[in-house]
């Protein structure tokens, strides 16, 4: 599959790709941290602010009507995109981190008591660790961690062995931001068989593979808009309606109430119950535009194309004996973490930067995992719809140059 099969001249949709780093063309291999934006998203944000802007839901004037309709329309688009049953199951937040904090806090209030257990994995992003650490620190909730195999897949046998009568919920990544490995749906089956609630962190999966929350049968699925070509500042929490209904509100403020007196308040129904204060309304709209953009290309095509890029890069990198990659799994996509012999990831990243290649270097917000891999840091390349095989060729040549440069020193 070639890039033109996605959409003709797709790179022209992304103005950031015109940027020169020194005199080199930008090669953006850091989509896993955040995706670049198509012009249509950038223009629509400006158009919203110029022609349709006002606060939402609280007024009767024309601009309020237009802004509200655009905001709610985005919710419908997201509902359809991930195949949620109802719009009420789509809560706008500021990012996936806030979505996970929302669930951790409200779920704990509703369902957990001291010594109850939550299962995470050793390869979680800090955003799917810290919110649960708070519960351990403040409410005596016990946390357990699923091990991974040598290729960065969750060890599901180990998962099963961790489950006890006190286990209430499992919260794990749907697609690892370090390995690119996709979580086997058997995890959900095991969880269902043991009456556990399931939260999937979809930050990486949302833009790389087709997501159908009903098919996945998870209870909660969270993602950030900026990783799927949308604006920063907008996140989504999907939750099954009956569960969200039972959870208490998270933040208090305007828009989430039914009735307020000085003695107390009753709360709005879903989804408003969880959307206190003026929401990131323009950003929500921009996310809807970004979702239109990827849907016009087609998630199936994107999935195939990025898988092809990943295999192509893996193959070429495996031929360099000074490069170590951290997952040989064939169930992965779009993300490759690696190190060069004896060269720190930061040196690699700076060298590549001068060549025009943007890669991530560091612990990827996964310090516990770095400890398990016994590395301080890794470099990471990650792909989006705008990347090409020739960029990978250029990158692999740059790795050789990098190795030679630091070997001489």
């Amino acid at each position: 599959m070639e890039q033109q099969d996605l959409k003709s001249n797709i790179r022209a949709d992304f103005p950031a790709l015109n940027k020169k780093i020194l005199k080199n063309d930008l090669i953006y291999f850091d989509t896993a941290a955040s995706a670049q934006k198509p012009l249509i998203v950038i223009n629509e944000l400006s158009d919203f602010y110029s022609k349709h802007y006002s606060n939402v839901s609280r007024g009767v004037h024309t601009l309020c009507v237009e802004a509200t309709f655009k905001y709610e329309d985005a919710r419908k688009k997201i509902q359809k995109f991930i195949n949620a049953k109802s719009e009420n199951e789509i809560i706008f937040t500021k990012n996936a981190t806030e979505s996970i904090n929302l669930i951790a806090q409200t779920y704990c209030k509703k369902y957990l008591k001291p010594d109850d257990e939550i299962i995470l994995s050793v390869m979680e992003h800090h955003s799917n660790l810290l919110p649960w650490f708070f519960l351990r620190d403040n409410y005596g909730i016990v946390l357990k961690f699923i091990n991974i195999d040598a290729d960065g897949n969750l060890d599901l046998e180990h998962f099963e062995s961790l489950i006890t009568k006190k286990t209430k919920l499992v919260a794990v990544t749907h697609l690892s931001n370090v390995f690119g490995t996709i979580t086997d749906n058997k995890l959900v089956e095991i969880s269902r068989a043991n009456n556990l609630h399931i939260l999937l962190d979809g930050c990486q999966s949302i833009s790389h593979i087709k997501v159908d929350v009903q098919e996945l049968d998870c209870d909660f699925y969270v993602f950030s808009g900026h990783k799927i070509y949308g604006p920063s500042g907008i996140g989504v929490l999907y939750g099954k309606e009956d569960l969200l209904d039972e959870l208490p509100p998270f933040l208090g403020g305007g828009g989430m109430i039914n009735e307020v007196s000085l003695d107390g308040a009753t709360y709005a129904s879903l989804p408003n119950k969880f959307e206190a204060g003026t929401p990131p309304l323009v950003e929500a709209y921009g996310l809807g535009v970004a979702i239109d953009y990827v849907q016009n290309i087609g998630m199936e095509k994107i999935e195939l194309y990025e898988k092809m890029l990943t295999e192509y890069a893996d193959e070429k990198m495996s031929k360099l004996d000074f490069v170590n990659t951290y997952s040989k799994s064939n169930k992965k996509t779009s993300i490759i973490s690696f190190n060069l012999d004896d060269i720190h990831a930061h040196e690699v990243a700076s060298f590549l930067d001068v060549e025009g290649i943007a890669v991530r270097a560091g612990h990827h917000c996964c310090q516990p995992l770095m400890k398990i891999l016994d590395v301080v840091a890794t470099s990471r390349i990650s792909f989006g719809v705008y990347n090409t095989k020739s960029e990978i060729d250029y990158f692999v040549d740059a790795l050789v140059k990098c190795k030679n440069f630091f070997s001489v020193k």
Partner: protein
Amino acid sequence: MSDLLKELYQEIILDHGKTPRNFGECEPFNKSADGHNPLCGDKVHLTLMVDDQGIIKDIKFTGVGCAISIASTSLMTQSLKGKSLDYANSLFQDFSNLITGKGDKLDLIGEEDSLYSLKGVGAFPMRVKCATLSWHAFKSAIND
């Protein structure tokens, strides 16, 4: 005054808004519900007496709200009194279609032509909830 506003605030709306019919509480009643629009604070308290055959023998309301919401409630009580619950459900569907501009099947509205006076709400989408508040309260009263 623009045509849109004239259409919205027809004389019958202003009249029912100011002097609502069937205002008060049925005595006795066997069905009731409260409606509340948290966006603007409008409230309606609805009571009904429905007999064994499913005929609405009496329907009354109390509440606070804008002219549209009070008038719509007042007109609703007039059009539902003496009617069957089946009829009421179909009329609600017709009414929703009418004010959201989706109306192609408005057979029953013809019989309750006063409800046509709320058609102008369609041009003000944020006011649709004002006009349907009491209908939703009615729904929850009979589903109780």
